[in-house]
Structure formats: C-alpha cells, structure tokens
C-alpha cells in the first residue's frame, strides 16, 4: 500500500462486544472525524474515507487486538490523536496509533494468526485440528493460536465445540517474523 497510514489497535469489551464489525469501524471513523483527522478520501462522486481493517470479530467475543488502517494526507497532530483516543463509546478503547509510511506492508499482509484465551465450562475432549495450536490448557480455560491457512484465519468455533465456551477473548495477533518477511 502506497499511502501514508495510521494503524490503530483497539480493544472491544462489554458492551461494545455486541456492536457488529461494520458498525464498530463506522464508530472509529466518526471519532476520527470528530477530531478532524486529515484522512484521505476515495475519489468519485460520493467520497469515502480510505480504510481497511482486519477480518470481523464474532459478535460477543472480547478482543485486545483489533486493527484498522486509515489512509492519511498528513500525520495528525498530538491533540488530534489524543482527542481520537479519548472520544470512544463505552467498551471501545484505543490501545495504540502507529504511523505507517508509504511502501510498508499493510496489516493484513503481516498477520499470521490470532491468539485466543477461552474460558470453558468443561475440559476439552479432543485436541483442535491443525491450524489451531493448543498452547495451554488450565483449569477452566485454554489458550489457542489459530494460524492463517489458504489466506483465512478461522474462528475458534470451527475447531472446538462452542457450547463449552463461557467467554472468548482475542488476546493478540500473531505477526510474521521479520526474518520471514525478508
């Protein structure tokens, strides 16, 4: 991607976990507009803000690793970033705003997978299939990594019976290592 961008990492907690993906992205766009960010618009008769996000999180899941990238005409000032960070609805929180320069890979190119911490009501009967890797299984919880396969990162419910899920939290994204990238 050749644009100057802001890479926004945000978390989703109660009650925003019940707000769908597109509505969440629209909310973030609005908070940037409230802070008068110098974002880039698409050309055409009805210009839109140029943005891309990682694939949707399921409704009801918590997350500390949601990402959105927005194309910019220039770097927003500290006050604009500060205003954006503090003007979020309940349950949405901005974790970081990182400036990405033209030529650098986009977030979707460098993500390899997601890590989930899942609270469960009963122990696992069978281990999840590849590409889900069970990293840890404790009393009442488990941690799994789900890696990209054929360009997709599947949902935990594809590997584990979701009836035992009590609470699902996406804790982080797994990125390509620098060496691999080169």
């Amino acid at each position, binding site marked *: 991607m050749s644009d100057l961008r802001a890479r926004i990492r945000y978390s989703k907690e109660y009650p925003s976990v*019940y707000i769908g993906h597109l*509505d969440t992205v629209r909310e973030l766009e609005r*908070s940037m507009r409230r802070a008068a960010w110098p974002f880039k618009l698409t050309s055409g008769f009805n210009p839109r803000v140029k943005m891309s996000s990682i694939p949707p999180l399921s409704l009801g899941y918590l997350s500390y690793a949601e990402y959105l990238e927005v194309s910019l005409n220039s770097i927003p000032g500290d006050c604009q970033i500060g205003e954006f960070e503090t003007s979020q609805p309940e349950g949405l929180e901005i974790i970081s705003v990182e400036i990405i320069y033209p030529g650098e890979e986009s977030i979707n190119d460098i993500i390899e997978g997601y890590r989930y911490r899942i609270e469960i009501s009963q122990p696992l009967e069978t281990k999840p299939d590849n590409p889900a890797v069970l990293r840890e299984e404790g009393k009442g919880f488990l941690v799994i990594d789900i890696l990209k396969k054929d360009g997709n990162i599947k949902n935990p419910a594809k590997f584990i019976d979701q009836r035992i899920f009590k609470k699902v939290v996406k804790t982080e994204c797994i990125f390509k290592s620098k060496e691999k990238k080169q």
Partner: protein
Amino acid sequence: MKKEKLGKIFAAVQTPGRYTGSEYNAYKYKNERFRFLLCYPDDYKIGMSSLGYHTVGKIVSSHIDFAVERCFAPAPDMEKIMREEKISLFSLESKTPADKFDLLGFSVHHELSFTNMLNMLDLAGLHPMRAQRSHKDPPVIAGGPATVNPALLGEFADLMVVGEGEGIIPGLLDRFTSSGSKEEFLASAAELEGVFVSGKSSSVRITPYLKFDDSYVPCGQPVPCVSIPHDRINIEISRGCRGSCRFCQASVIYAPYRQKTPERILDIASASVASTGCDEIALTSLSATDHENIIEIMDDMHYAFRDLGVSVVMPSLRPEDFSGKFASGLSRIRRGGLTFAPETPSQRLKKIINKNIDNEKILEAARQASLRGWRKMKLYFMIGLPSETMEDIEEIGRFISRIKSETEMKNITVSLSAFNPQPHTPLQWVIPGDPEVLAEKERRIKKIVRGTVKGIDIQSHIISSILCRGDSGLGNVVYEAFREGARFDQWGEHFDYSAWERAFNKDGKDIMEYYFRDFSRLKELPWDSVETVAGKDYLEKSYRIVLKLIGERTGV
C-alpha cells in the same frame, strides 16, 4: 440488572446494539433531582432517526433539574425474553426500570405506534389506560405530531404537549419541579399554553415557536451504534411550508413558514460534525429549496466539510430546482435518486387537492437530472382522492410512459399511498376511499406502469385512518388490540389485522363503520379541542371550494 444477565440477553436477541445504551454521547445521570425517560414507541432504528426525538432529549437535558435517559419499543424477540424472565422495561443508559423515573415522555409520531406505547407502559408495570393508573404512578406525557388529535391519545397519556415543544417543555418541567404531587402537577400544567391535560383541559392552541432561528438543536446527540435509516445530522433549515395542499396536515400544524439564518445553519452543522462525527448532513424541511439563502447554505456546507468526507443531502427537492437558480448547486449535494410527490398527474385532481406541481416541470427535471447522470427516479402518488375515477388512474400509466420515452430515466419507482383524511386539513370531512376500489386501482396501476410499483397495505391504511380521526370511545379498542398482540403496526411484517378485528369485535364495534364515518355530518369533530393557526373557518372555506370543484364536474 447485572452485567452477566444482560450479556446473556444481548447474546440471544437480534441487533443487540439497540439495547446496550453504549453510544458515544449517550446521556449520563449526574445526580439531577429528577429523571425523565424519553420513550419512542417504535424500534431504536426509527427513533434514533427522528430529529424531533433528539430535540426533546436536548430540551429536557438542558433543564438543570432533569436527567434524561432513552427507551425504545423492544422488538418481538426482546419482548418475549422480557416477559418470560419478568424483566421490566428499562432505560438504555443505566438500565433503570421505567417506573422508577419521575416522568415518562413519549414522542408519538404516528397513530400506528399507539399499541407499542401501550406495550411499553405495560412492560413498565404501568397500566396502559390512563384512568387505571394511580396517583403514585409517574405522569405519562405525549408529544409529537399524533397529539394534534388528543381525544384518543388522551386515553393513554396523562398530558399532551400539542404543537411545537420548544416553547412549552421548559415551562412544563418547571411546573413539575414545583409541584408536590402528580395531581398538583397536572392541574398546574393545564394552565400552560400548548398543554392538554386529559380529563381536565377542554381546548388547546398550537402556538408556533417564533424564535425558530435560536431554537434548541440536538448537537451532541447520542450517535447510533447500529446502522439506522437516517444515520445523519438532520438540520431543520426551515419550518412550515408555503404550499397549502388540502390533504397536508404538516403545513397546517407547523404554520407559519419560518427559516434559520445561513450563519446559524453553518454553526449547527459545524458543532454537530464535531460532536457526532457523522458523514452526512441532511437539510430537512417540508420544502428546503424554498429557503431564500439555499445556494449560500449549500456552498458554505460544501467548503466547510468536503475534506472531512461529509456529504450533504436534501430530502425534499422540487422539479423546478433542476432548471432554476438552484441547478448549479446540485453538484454540491450527494446524488441519490430523484424524488417527487406529484400525488396525481391529473390536472383536475391537482386542483382539488391544491397541489401545484406541474407534470411538464417534472418531465423537465427528469431531463435535466438525467443529463447530470441521475438515473433513478421515485414518484409518490396518492390514490383514493376525492372524486377520483379510473380515468385519473390511467393517467398515472401514461405519465410514467412519457417520462420513460422522453428522458434517460430508466429506473422509475412508483410509490403509492392511500388518501387519509387527516385532522386539521380541509379534506378532514371527506370519507376515505372504499378499500375494495383502492385495491382495484392499485391492481390497475401495477398493470399499466412499466416499472417498480410499491403498493399500499390497505388493511393498515384502514386502521391508520380510523385511529388518526379517533375519539376517546376507541381507547378500549386500541387496548384490546394491544392485548390481542398488535405491535409495530406500521411494519408490514408485524402488522396483524386480525388482532384489530378481534379488538373491534370484543368492543362491539364495526371496523368499516368507523372507517366510513361521515364527519361532515358532525358539528363537533373529536379534534376540535385543538386550535391551529389557520383555524377551522379557513379549513371550512377551503373544503367548500373542493365541494364546488367536485360539483362542477359531477353536476351535484
């Protein structure tokens, strides 16, 4: 209610964002003396699209002694859970049970939302019928366009704010703060201009709010967290209409015509974009391009917001706007479809309803707009107009064919509605069209119009027509309809005519007798208690012209 319990409920219903109350700018309780629950008797998506609803929220929350919270009609899946789990109607923001609020205010925009209002009261543990509630229950206030006939609504609401709320609500809240009891408050409120207290007031006058330029505007309103039909900043640039179509209630109840200054409009737009972040501004009005500074306003908006990706839309354009001074400004607004409401292509009927929208001008507008790349057109027609014949209906087909052959507009939608003799209009004395004949006309239009035709729900029209002209004698019927399961009567997928039939039967009343009621024989109309700026004499004069015009043709 505990977070865990709420979480379970939210996980089980459709579009839970409608109930979370987590929006940016959601109201906050700061220990004010009194709490006001702002209720909208329809779905979240409809209520959150309403400028009137947000304006009342702004007025009440601006009062030093009042905190506001919101509440909407729960969708059927939510209602089911609430009834099964005995959950009382609760506010969105703090999830406080509705009956714990000091005042309940309903913004009632349509008589087809009466059953939702009753359902909300019932879910709150309050009796839907006013007479059955006790002095300990919070007063129930109704506002909005449906209050222009307080006779029937007064069976459910304790008091009604009739007409424009800006000038009335602050004083009404003051009366509440200084009253020791519900009885004292109602008695004191009855003295106020624009307030009708059920069972106490005998008349009320609609008083236009003349400081319209300075009026309350809901900048900083809660920003919806699910997509809604009108997800935008609505700015009412003018109020009232210079036209006087004889079927139109809005032009009578919002008279006289007033407008906001371009400076004020730009201030509101800037404050609203900064406080909501919305990407669309709609310049709303009954006739936006009548504003004498409309071009200046469009230019201001364009330059102020273009870098922020904010587009400007104008829901109401007239055909002449596409060729006159306004045409150049059209490139400033978002290109959607071209929408006009000629109501009828028949010159004779246009004269009867006094709608001065020329067919040739519509054709010219379609030509001009198609040159600018617009390809979609939507035309609203009203059927069942007084003295309408099948020949008038045939004209609709011919008119659409002309547009298709003489312009580049290829995608034309015809949207039909049935004429409803609304209170406070010159046609209020007319008997509405026979439903069977309406159905026949609709079928004919669908046959002759080459394009999409959006038809009428005739059964819903029957109920709407009865209720808008309803008197207090129908209170029990509405209550029975609610008990029979009627909800969301404005929504085709939820409307249940059989519930209404059962309700009328139970009350020993005949639906069609009510529908065909001849109000021209009545000296007093149920809504005569409301005095409009135009007054009944004007309506009578205008009605006599209609009779003359019809008589000229039929020789009666």
